[in-house]
């Protein structure tokens, strides 16, 4: 049957419709996947050893990259805010800007992005390889639920480990700002720290930790999801790894906005 002009004009609309339906379908499938994994967290048996292994992998082995990122971010923040504020004689606000920016936004977001690169990719590759080499089917034949064994412990570990990493990142980020403030910008050490702690509120730190827990959940969820659903051999595992990192990075930035809007809507 010959296609008319109006059929051709509607092609982009059809493509958009397919993309939206695909997105909704994937969102629903991921929500069901997450729900099933969470349900396994409250039903025995529990795999404490696997939880600890995943926790150490996320919290301990991500520490160097998160720490370096936080220190340098604090240093840059101090330098940039000093340059800006000095134009209208407000250099005294540097410590306040550094501590607020780090605890509320940059600590959780940058730690989340770093962990997404490390852990999201690693989980997707490991679980994806298990999928294409029949190891996940093997788990089922060995009376072990793959969701309970592979996904639930990682999800819990990610949700608990990222807030700890962010606490470290907050501390080191502030110290980075302090280092530049005292060594390069001429602030007195005591005055800089006093300005930092006087201005800081518990809610600033807690909001960052809440964000971190959400980001940790999303990173591990997307890593596990992409790996669990992968197929098509080595190429499929590669695609799963890429999509886990890209999806979790975008979700971190989008959720950061939404959580900020909710937590600071005054």
């Amino acid at each position, binding site marked *: 049957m010959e296609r008319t002009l109006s059929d051709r004009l509607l092609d982009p609309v059809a493509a958009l419709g397919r993309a939206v339906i695909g997105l909704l379908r994937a969102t629903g499938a991921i929500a069901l996947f997450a729900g099933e994994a969470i349900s396994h967290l409250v039903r025995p*048996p529990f795999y404490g050893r696997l939880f600890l292994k995943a926790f150490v992998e996320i919290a301990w082995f991500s520490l160097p990259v998160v720490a370096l990122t936080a220190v340098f971010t604090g240093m840059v923040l101090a330098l940039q805010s000093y340059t800006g504020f000095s134009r209208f004689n407000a250099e005294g606000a540097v410590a306040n800007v550094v501590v607020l920016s780090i605890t509320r936004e940059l600590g959780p977001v940058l730690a989340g992005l770093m962990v997404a690169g490390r852990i999201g990719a690693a989980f997707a590759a*490991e679980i994806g390889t*298990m999928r294409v080499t*029949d190891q996940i*089917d*093997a788990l*089922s*034949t*060995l*009376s072990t639920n793959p969701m309970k064994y592979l996904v639930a412990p990682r999800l819990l570990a990610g949700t608990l480990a990222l807030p700890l990493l962010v606490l470290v990142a907050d501390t080191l980020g502030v110290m980075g700002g302090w280092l530049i403030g005292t060594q390069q910008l001429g602030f007195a050490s005591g005055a800089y720290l006093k300005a930092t702690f006087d201005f800081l509120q518990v809610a600033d730190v807690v909001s960052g930790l809440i964000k971190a827990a959400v980001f940790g959940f999303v990173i591990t969820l997307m890593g596990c999801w992409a790996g669990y659903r992968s197929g098509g051999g080595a190429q499929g595992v590669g695609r799963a790894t890429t999509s886990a990192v890209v999806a979790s990075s975008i979700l971190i930035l989008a959720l950061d906005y939404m959580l900020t809007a909710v937590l600071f809507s005054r």
Partner: protein
Amino acid sequence: MISTRQGTMSDVPKIRLRGLRKAFGAKQVLDGVDLDIRAGHSMVILGGSGSGKSVTLKCILGLITPDAGTIEIDGRDVSKLSRVEREQVNDRIGMLFQNGALFDSLPVWENVSFKLLAQRRISRRAARDKAAEVLAQVGLAASVGDLSPAELSGGMQKRVGLARAIAAEPDIIFFDEPTTGLDPIMGAVIDGLIVDVVKRLGATAVSITHDMASARRIGDDAAMIHRGQIIWRGEARSLGDTGNAMVDQFARGEREGPIQMELRK
């Protein structure tokens, strides 16, 4: 050949498939599979690549849900069982995967004792001893237990896979192309081990293969699947001289015959 024991419930097959159908997209992989597998016997399912053998096996294991048809194990329709009941049925099943499917992240001994550890039926210390015992049954030294699966040859991986499949002493064992990728001598060794362990456990065995020598060595009964249907069943020792033109062509590996490979030119 294995034949170890006759069915205790004389007329009830250990596994009964009726009208099993499964399609992936437009491709109808299983198109009404009917098959009975006798308790205590070894059934070999033959068929070319893409004929539906692996999908049949995965349906029985519960890894794939069929579109239609019934799967009965010991007379119970497994599709009607609750999740817990289905897990209880699976507890009595062992499986040797084609590529071993050993867990890379665990040493060999933990792979072998995995099911016992996962079900908390045994302490880690006892699991290590149990692994050494089962590894000995498949001709491997206890020291192999400390190696990682990546350090093993293909033949050793098959043996460890076999050890893992039998460690919990199942009463049904599935073998997915047990000799694929092995040299003929190692293939014969693995077949010999399969015959021995199945006989010792008194288990029902279901193997899928396209290795005729292996099929004759390990099978009591044989069935051939072609285009998603069972087209023949009989004794494994008659393979090659069954009187069914398709089966005989397949068993002899002949290019000309009723089975035409779909090759693009």
